[in-house]
C-alpha cells in the first residue's frame, strides 16, 4: 500500500525535473564555468567581500521575522479557530486582504507610515509621546513591520487549518478530567496544533530568505539581503557566473537549515519527513 502512495511522486517529480531541476542544473553549472572553468566564483563568495556578511544577515532577518510572525499569528489563529459563522468569515477576509495588494505597493504604504512626517510620527506628536519627529527610515523597525505584514497570512492560515481540525471532544475530555484551561492548552491544544505551526514556520522562514523588495525599500544598505545581491550580479553586472554561485550557496545554506530545523522540531509529526 505504501508502494501505491510512492507512485504518486511520479508526476510531481517529472514536472519539477523538467521545469525546476533542469533549468537549475544549467544555472548551477554556470557558477563553475562562467567566465572560466573553476572555483573562482566560489572563492569570491567565501572570500573577503561582502557576500558572507549578507548571507548571515539574510538568515538572521528571516529568523527574526519568523519568530515575530509566530508570536503574532498564534493568538490570532487561536481566536479565529474558536470563532464560527459570520465573524470567522470577516476575520478570514481581513487576513486575506493584504494578499491581494502587490508587495511593492504595500512597501510604499509602509514608507508613508514610517516617514518623519508620516502617520506614526503624527500620532506620536499628537499624543505628546515625542517632541520631535523620529526617524524610523531606513531601519530595522520598518523592515520587520513590513516583512511581518507580508508573511503573517502565511503563518495564520496553516495554523488555523491545523487548529480547526483539532477534535473538540479531546479538549472537553481533558477539562472534564479536571485540567485547568491553561493546562488544557499546553498539554492538549498546543501539541495538536504543532503540524500547522511547523508548516507555518517552515513556510515563513524559507520565503523570508528570498525577500527582495521590502528590505530594499524600508531598510538601509546595512539591511541588504541575498536576493538583492544576486539580482545585482545578474541584472546590473551581467555576471551570471557569480549570480549562480551566490544562488547555489543560498540554496545549500537554506536546505541545510531546513533539515536541521526538521530534526530539531522533530516530534512524532515531523519524524516522518526526515526518516
Amino acid at each position, binding site marked *: 500500500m505504501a508502494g501505491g502512495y510512492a507512485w504518486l511522486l511520479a508526476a510531481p517529480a517529472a514536472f519539477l525535473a523538467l521545469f525546476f531541476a533542469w533549468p537549475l542544473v544549467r544555472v548551477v553549472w554556470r557558477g563553475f564555468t562562467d567566465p572560466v572553468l573553476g572555483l573562482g566564483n566560489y572563492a569570491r563568495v567565501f572570500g573577503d567581500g561582502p557576500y558572507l556578511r549578507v548571507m548571515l544577515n539574510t538568515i538572521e532577518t528571516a529568523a527574526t521575522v519568523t519568530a515575530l510572525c509566530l508570536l503574532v499569528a498564534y493568538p490570532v489563529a487561536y481566536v479565529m479557530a474558536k470563532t464560527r459563522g459570520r465573524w470567522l468569515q470577516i476575520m478570514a477576509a481581513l487576513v486575506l486582504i493584504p494578499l491581494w495588494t502587490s508587495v511593492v505597493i504595500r512597501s510604499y504604504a509602509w514608507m508613508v507610515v514610517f516617514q518623519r512626517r508620516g502617520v506614526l510620527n503624527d500620532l506620536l506628536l499628537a499624543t505628546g509621546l515625542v517632541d520631535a519627529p523620529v526617524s524610523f527610515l531606513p531601519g530595522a523597525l520598518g523592515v520587520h513591520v513590513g516583512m511581518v505584514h507580508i508573511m503573517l497570512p*502565511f503563518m495564520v492560515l496553516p495554523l488555523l487549518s491545523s487548529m480547526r481540525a483539532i477534535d473538540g471532544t479531546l479538549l472537553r475530555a481533558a477539562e472534564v478530567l479536571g485540567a485547568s484551561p491553561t493546562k488544557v492548552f499546553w498539554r492538549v491544544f498546543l501539541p495538536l496544533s504543532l503540524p500547522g505551526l511547523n508548516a507555518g514556520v517552515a513556510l515563513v522562514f524559507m520565503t523570508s530568505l528570498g525577500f527582495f523588495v521590502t528590505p530594499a525599500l524600508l531598510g538601509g544598505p546595512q539591511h541588504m539581503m541575498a536576493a538583492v545581491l544576486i539580482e545585482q550580479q545578474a541584472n546590473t553586472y551581467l555576471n551570471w557566473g557569480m549570480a549562480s554561485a551566490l544562488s547555489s550557496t543560498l540554496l545549500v545554506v537554506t536546505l541545510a537549515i531546513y533539515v536541521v530545523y526538521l530534526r530539531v522540531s522533530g516530534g512524532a509529526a515531523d519524524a516522518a519527513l526526515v526518516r
Partner: protein
Amino acid sequence: MTPRGDALARAMRVLLPCFTVLVLLYLTLPSILIVLMSLSDQTYLTFPPPGWSLRWYRTMTEDTSWPQAALNSFVVGVPAAALSVVLGTQAALALTRGRLRFAAIASACIVAPMLLPHVIMAIGLYPVMLDLGLLRSYTAAILAHAVVALPLVFIIVSASLRGYGESLELAAMVCGAGPCATFRHITFPMIRMSMAVGGLLAFATSFDELMLSLFLTGPGTRTLPRLIWEQMNAYLTPTIAAVATLVLVLSLVLLGAAALLQRGRIEGSAP
C-alpha cells in the same frame, strides 16, 4: 464555559480578542492608506493628500492595458494554482504515506523552488521555455508559477496529513476500498481545507509574482505585477494606487460571493 477557569484563562478571554483586533487592523492599514492615496489630486504619491479627486481612476480607464493585464493575471493564476494543488498534494501524499527511504531529500527538493530568488529561476527557465516553443505564452507563465507555488501546497497539505494518522485510510483499504475510493471518501475530506488554503496561497503567489513574468510573458500576456512594475519605473503616480484599490475591491467582492455561496449551500442543505 468551565467553572474552574483560572485567572490567566479569564484574562486571556479578554486580551486575546483585543490583540486579534489590533493585528487585523495592522493587516488592513496599508490597504486603507492605498485607497486614500488613490483619491489624491496630486501627481505624486503623498499622504495625507492635500486634495481629493478621481482623476487617477479616469487615467486608468483610458488605458486598456490595465484590464487586459488583470485578466492575464487570472488566466495565469487560476491554472497555476490548480496545477500546484494537484501536484503538491500528490507529492505530499507520496512523501507522508509512501515510506520512501529518500523522503528527506525529496521533500527538500520539492521545497527548493520557493527558496531560490526568482531571477535565477527566470534565467534558467528562459531557454527551457524557448526550446519548448512556449516563450511569451500563457502556458510558460502558468508552468513557471506552478513550480514556485507547488511548495506552498506541499508544505501545508503535508502538515495536515501528518496531523491525521493513516489508520483510517488503512482501515478503508483493508475493507476493500480501492486507492481512488479511499482518497475520495477518507483522505480528501480530511485534507480539503488545507488543499483550499494551499491553492489560495498559490494563486496569491502567482498574482504577485514579478520576475518570472518579466522573462516569460510577452506584451500580450503580461500580468498585473509586470504592468505595475513597468509603469512604476517611470513615475510613481496615484494610478498605481488606483489599480491596487480596484484589485482590492474585486477580491473583496469575490471573497464575499464565496462566503454567500457557502452559506447558501449550508442553509439549503439544512433539513
